[in-house]
């Protein structure tokens, strides 16, 4: 490692509580934005969110219908695979549990899902990491409607995993029996992505 004399880089909170910082991360008060493609601008009147099992449509909501589902607010830390962590981010949306209920499902029909998004982005998740309050489809950040650049009108939020799993511009949840790689996972990001075990890449233990 060749250290560059005098280089500090973007402000990083050195005095952050160690226990809140996953290994290899730096804390920022900025909002890091990593994008795999052009920002999607979906008009609200065209927006729907759907749940599917194979060819079968289990449920679908228009923006208006989605807005009438139970709203939950959370404050949580987020961790980007680019090594930036941001503490105490505030979100509002519909939890995955409430989506299952609204779809008339007592439980998830499968163990895994693939999230499908405008622009073609996908990411895979175990259902176990979405239920019991662990995840939501978020529509508001810091009390304001989610801007398109941050995934608005709605993004998946799964804060206990690396933030690439919190898929922007989510439009569909496809239930699957098997776990298979989404967009970044198929290139070599870790299939699961636990920041506390530093599971950034395929092959990380």
């Amino acid at each position, binding site marked *: 490692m060749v250290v560059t004399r005098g280089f500090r880089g973007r402000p990083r909170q050195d005095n952050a509580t160690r226990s809140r910082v996953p290994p290899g991360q730096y804390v920022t008060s900025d909002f890091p*934005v*990593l*994008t*795999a*493609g*052009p*920002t999607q601008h979906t008009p609200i009147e065209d927006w729907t969110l759907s749940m599917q099992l194979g060819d079968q449509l289990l449920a679908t909501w228009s923006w208006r219908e989605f807005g009438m589902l139970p709203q939950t607010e959370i404050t949580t830390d987020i961790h980007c*695979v*680019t090594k930036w962590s941001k503490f105490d981010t505030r979100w509002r949306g519909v939890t995955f549990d409430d989506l299952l209920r609204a779809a008339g499902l007592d439980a998830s029909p499968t163990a895994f899902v693939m999230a499908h998004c405008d*622009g*073609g982005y996908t990411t895979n998740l175990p259902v176990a990491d979405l239920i019991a309050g662990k995840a939501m489809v978020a529509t508001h950040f810091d009390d304001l409607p989610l801007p*398109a*650049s941050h995934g608005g009108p709605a993004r998946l939020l799964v804060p206990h995993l690396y933030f690439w799993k919190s898929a922007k511009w989510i439009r569909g949840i496809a239930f699957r029996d098997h776990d298979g790689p989404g967009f*970044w996972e*198929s*290139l*070599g*990001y870790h299939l699961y992505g636990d920041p506390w075990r530093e599971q*950034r*890449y*395929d*092959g990380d233990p």
Partner: protein
Amino acid sequence: MNDDDMVLDGNAAAGALGSLFAFDVTMAVVRCGNCGVSGPLAELRLFGSPQAMVLRCRHCDAVNIRLLETGRTINLDLAGSARIEIGRAA
């Protein structure tokens, strides 16, 4: 400033790709696997980060090339390109 201002082009990917190839990648001509339009790699739209690059077709936005640098490997995905032509040195 709208967020599209942040997009660079394939020229910026040349350093990372250059560590993989003996030839100059910015001169390579890429044919999009989705729409069939060909153009210099340098003209592809670049997304992602220096470690995780996504190069998209300027005409249809389809992914043509992806590159990921992990601690152990450099992963290259050319599946979105129908063909990549590299000119021989004169």
